[in-house]
Each structure stands twice: as C-alpha cells, then as structure tokens.
C-alpha cells in the first residue's frame, strides 16, 4: 500500500522538477517554502470568551491589528486577516496537536477552526529585487515603511490571490491557492527574468 502521508503532501510544483534546476545566483531567488499546517480561525474579536479561549491554548492573545503576525506557542504563528478571521500556521511536525487543542478550547463558543493545510502552496521569494518583482504584479505598497518585515497582507499578485508574509525586507512567503501554484510560479519566473531570477535550492 502506498505511503498515505507522502501522497498527501505531494507538492503542487512537483511537476516542474525544481530540484534539477536549482542553483545559480540572481537578483531574486524563487523556491518552494516548507509545507506547513494551516488553519482558518474565525470568531468575533470583541467576544471575551472567544479571545480568552484562544489565549489559553496558544499562550498569546489574538493579534488585533490588520496584518499583524504573532508568534504563539509550539513555533506557530497567528495572522490577522480580517475583522473576524485569523490564520494559524504550525510546523508540520506538530501533526495537528495544537489545532486539536484550539478546537477543543473553542467548543461550545462562537469560534471555529478549519484545516486548510492542503489549500495553499507556499512560495518563497527572496533576494535584493524580491520586492521589485512582486511590485510588477500587485497594487499594495511594498515599501518597508508601509509593509514592514514581520507583517502579512492578503492581496492579489499576478494571476492569484496571495497571502503575503514578509519575513525580512528582502524575503517574502507567498501562500497561493494550490490550483494556481504552477501558473503563479511561471508568472514569477517570467517577471523574474528582468531581475535574473534563479531557483533556490
């Protein structure tokens, strides 16, 4: 019988055979980010029972500023995406344990947690011209003063909706819908020619 765990995590970019093309230096490096567990957390921000239930499990309060990214327990991140929506990102090694605890903490209250791990592919864009490349396809202001490292926004880039997580001034993680991953990658490579884009190892 096939290894279910391996099959479940087959990358949407597997067909591009990136491993064999990796190498070289360029103004921008494109690579697939490490797969993570991802959950949509919904609930009323103003509801104290909801906020407390989340804080009790995660060890940190809900981030309340739009686009705020907060480190919580077990190397997980909580990102504020909307008035009543957050994204919980956890390492694959966590294997659903944290999410199970959040879900049981929310039981009976007004919040909900949904696993969306397989819905998106994470593409890492790094390098001197990373922001320049993304700026060719989005209307959001990528100046570090307006979008500092450590923040995230959901927007549209190129042909896809993307959750953009800025790790550093020159490092972005783009969470794009899985079915768009391949065409989005090709869009990045096409636009990246101007900046000598290379595939990261």
């Amino acid at each position, binding site marked *: 019988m096939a290894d279910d765990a391996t099959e479940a995590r087959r990358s949407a970019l597997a067909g591009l055979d990136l491993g064999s093309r990796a190498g070289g230096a360029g103004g921008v490096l494109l690579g697939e980010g490490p797969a993570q567990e991802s959950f949509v957390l919904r609930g009323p921000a103003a509801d104290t029972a909801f906020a407390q239930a989340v804080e009790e499990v995660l060890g940190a309060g809900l981030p309340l500023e*739009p686009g705020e990214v907060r480190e919580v327990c077990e190397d997980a991140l909580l990102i504020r*995406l*909307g*008035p009543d*929506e957050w994204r919980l990102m956890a390492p694959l090694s966590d294997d659903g344990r944290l999410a199970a605890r959040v879900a049981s903490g929310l039981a009976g209250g007004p919040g909900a947690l949904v696993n969306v791990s397989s819905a998106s592919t994470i593409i890492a864009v790094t390098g001197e011209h990373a922001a320049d490349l993304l700026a060719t396809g989005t*209307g*959001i202001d990528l100046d570090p003063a307006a979008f500092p490292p450590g923040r995230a*926004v*959901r*927007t*549209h880039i190129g042909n896809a*909706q993307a959750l953009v997580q800025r790790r550093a001034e020159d490092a972005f993680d783009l969470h794009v819908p899985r079915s768009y991953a391949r065409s989005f990658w090709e869009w990045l490579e096409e636009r990246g020619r101007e900046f000598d884009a290379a595939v990261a190892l």
Partner: protein
Amino acid sequence: MLLIPCPFCGARDETEFAYGGDAGVERPTDPEAATDEAWTDYLCFHDNPKGPHRELWFHRDGCRRWLEVERDTWTHELGAVRLSRP
C-alpha cells in the same frame, strides 16, 4: 482604477473587489406574501442614478468582507465606506 478605502485593510485597488450592486435593494420580508409585482421590482427594477450611489463591494482578495461604498457614478468620487455587517 478606483482606490477603495477598505475600513479594515486600508486603500486597495478596485481589482481586489467584486461589485455587488445597489446597497439599497430590500428583499420582501415575507416572501410567501409578496406579490408578483413586489418580487419583480426586487429582482429586476433597480435605480440607475447618474450621481451619488450607495453600493456593495466584496473585498474578495483582502478581508473578505462586504462593504457599503458611496460612489458617484458620474465622477467616480468615493464617499463614506463601511463594513456592511460589522
């Protein structure tokens, strides 16, 4: 291109939004009792003003909330914007 000031996300390009039409249309409160005329009016006959208009926009690529936006259909000038259901 419109730059719509989303109350949650800040100013974003119109391409992040989906247009949802007139914000003032009211569904008949009691569908069973509504006359054909009332249904037809609700479904098909909407105002098409040249000038200020209150309309719905869905912030599809942002906070994924419906907004009520005041927009002048003649000049594209935007007025107040608020979350449709806060």
